[in-house]
């Protein structure tokens, strides 16, 4: 087994069109897609009356849930762009939560943030040592980092937090809050507008309001980090070298690039970002470290990154999709998710029609239409979704989007392949 083929299969499968079909999404398109999404949700809200679908609260919660996932994903992006598969994000994130708790408790929340990054970097260093220096399989190392991260955090937590006021073996004492930002006048003004529930306008107001109300500095830092990542990786010589290590390390080597150095650095940054994601969980989403606080978000971050086709913009949309659907199900529970059933039915029906009409795939089309009818029937016959089921919303949504969106995922060509200097020419 080697990590190399991890995601390769989907690309090499026959019948996929030849490589070279690249689509660049321009800025106006992004705005267009965004407005269209708001419009769709707005229609859904008006039709179903599930007001929480586009409330600023839901969106703010979505942001809150998306940031840690996004940071983990961004960490994955750095590492995998340099050719190191990072399944260890979860472990690095866990280390980050502990670092935030420990440093934050002793030296305040900003130190906590630093501690989170630092502990994440430690996790990254383990991964880098194993994969880059010793050249072992990336998956093995990542899995080991997950286990070690979990163990170190739990063990150290039990060691240092036990007996501290408000702390215990499984949680740190409380840490003070980090500042957050609200644009005063605009926020309340938009709030009023939002409450009017006017089609589209109120929804847009909700969106805008969610980003100018009580926005944590860490969220702002996270957004800046996404932009900075894009700029560094795609617009600087450093980034070019780093990416070349993920695309073709032997080629980079023959041009004098010290591949080890870039890979090592990338994995360290990766750990730092994942750690920051953990720090967000401990410092912003809560104000303590707790065992198991990450709840698998490192894996979700990895999924968001793959979802986003190893690009910053893509991973942000992956994290946002997940964060939004998770927020909506956590807040509105059955009724809001119930409203989404309608959207699902319409989407599946559209796919069915498209398949029959354009692709002449009658059988698949009929299956899709049938499925749509069942979902629609479910929508009509019930007025809520059982609570046990709502929890799966973000996961189902992610899967559906992946399954329906015609996708051409392409990971960095040498992602996951062990690299040894001077070999493989």
């Amino acid at each position: 087994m080697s990590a190399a083929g991890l995601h390769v299969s989907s690309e090499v499968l026959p019948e996929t069109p030849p490589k070279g079909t690249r689509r660049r999404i321009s800025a106006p398109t992004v705005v267009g897609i965004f407005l269209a999404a708001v419009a769709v949700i707005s229609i859904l809200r008006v039709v179903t009356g599930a007001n929480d679908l586009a409330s600023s609260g839901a969106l703010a919660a979505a942001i809150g849930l998306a940031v840690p996932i996004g940071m983990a994903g961004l960490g994955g992006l750095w590492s995998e762009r340099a050719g190191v598969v990072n399944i260890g994000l979860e472990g690095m994130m866990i280390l980050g939560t502990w670092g935030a708790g420990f440093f934050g408790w002793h030296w305040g929340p900003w130190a906590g943030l630093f501690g989170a990054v630092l502990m994440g970097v430690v996790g990254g260093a383990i991964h880098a040592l194993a994969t880059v220096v010793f050249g072992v399989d990336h998956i093995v190392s990542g899995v080991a980092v997950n286990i070690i991260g979990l163990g170190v955090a739990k063990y150290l937590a039990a060691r240092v937090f036990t007996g501290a006021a408000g702390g215990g073996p499984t949680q740190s004492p409380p840490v003070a809050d980090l500042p957050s930002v609200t644009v005063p006048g605009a926020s309340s003004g938009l709030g009023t507008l939002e409450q009017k529930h006017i089609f589209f306008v109120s929804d847009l107001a909700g969106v805008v309001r969610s980003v100018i109300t009580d926005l944590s500095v860490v969220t702002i830092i996270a957004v800046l980090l996404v932009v900075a990542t894009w700029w560094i990786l795609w617009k600087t010589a450093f980034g070019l070298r780093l990416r070349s290590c993920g695309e073709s390390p032997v080629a980079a080597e023959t041009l004098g690039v010290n591949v080890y150095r870039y890979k090592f650095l990338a994995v360290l940054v990766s750990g730092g970002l994942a750690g920051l994601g953990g720090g967000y969980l401990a410092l912003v989403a809560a104000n303590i470290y707790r065992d198991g606080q990450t709840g698998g978000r490192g894996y979700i971050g990895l999924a968001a990154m793959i979802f986003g086709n190893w690009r910053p913009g893509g991973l942000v949309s992956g994290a946002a999709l997940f964060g939004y659907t998770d927020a909506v199900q956590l807040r509105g529970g059955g009724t809001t998710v119930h409203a989404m059933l309608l959207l699902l039915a319409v989407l599946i029906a559209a796919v069915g029609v498209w398949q029959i009409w354009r692709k002449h795939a009658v059988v698949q089309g009929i299956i899709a239409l049938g499925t749509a009818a069942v979902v629609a029937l479910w929508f009509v016959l019930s007025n809520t979704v059982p609570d046990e089921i709502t929890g799966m919303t973000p996961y189902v949504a992610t899967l559906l989007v992946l399954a329906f969106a015609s996708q051409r995922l392409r990971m960095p060509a040498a992602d996951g392949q062990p690299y040894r200097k001077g070999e493989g020419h």
Partner: protein
Amino acid sequence: ACGNSSNTSTSGASSSGGAAKVKIGMAYDVGGRGDQSFNDAAAAGLDKAKKDLGIDAKEAEATQGEPESAREERLQQLIDAGYNNVVAVGFAYAPAVAKIAKANPDVKFAIVDSTDATGANIENLTFAEQEGSYLVGAAAALKSKTGNIGFVGGVNVDLIKKFEAGYVAGAKAVNPNIKVQVKYLSQPPDFSGFGDPAKGKTAAEGMYQNGADVVYHAAGGSGGGVFSAAKAAGKLAIGVDSDQALTAPADVRSVILTSMIKKVDVAVYSFITDVKDNKFQSGNKVFDLKAGGVDYATTGGLVNDIKAKLDAYKQQIIDGKIQVPTKP
């Protein structure tokens, strides 16, 4: 019931002296001593017994996702180490207790929260969480101005549903038209809902923004998120297991209307005294309102104005005039 006063060392080191010392082995559930919640409450009972009765104790805790054999082994090792009275904290221990109790008929067992393990040497310490929850439900309804309250459950298991059932019943008793928003954070066997403050916060925020003005949580460590959400929204929250107005971080204590106290410490303490006084009795011992096993907290004074009404409900339950449901 809290860990802030307990000190770092577990009591193993302090075992010495008197030959007749009662020996207690404690097997905690996942999270263990210091979880600021359920396990800590049990630990408090043990600590009190140590102080008052001079017993000798040994503690061990479960790890997430361990095999059944690990729980059996834990109990057996405590016994092997000479701790011939064993308290198993949490319903997950039921099969293990049933098995090990059979193999060790001379050892006395207590199991918290479960009636599944039975035997001549097993005492079941169970609680009427629904009764305490009924009272805080009533308190929520009495305090709610919007006629809209919330319940955040950590993990969707039967135990937590008891909390929900009592809470809803209590609220409806006060206001039959009250709206109760209910959310569970995770589904078993994913127990992350007991330790994910971010999710607790998101769920509670949603409830407050949807009009709730009091939210009750039975979500262990995720409850911290519920309190933060209450504070941010300027609304109220209700704590669980221990008197959280005393144990929660100082800055959120002011939003805690009351707490549903589940006195695991009392139950554990009573088991230990029974053992010590040779009054051990097998079978189910229900810690309900009547027995003082559950209660609501008054710390902070926010319920002072409705205390009389709550106490009236309490009396009715004790008198059996109100039957609180255990299922939602």
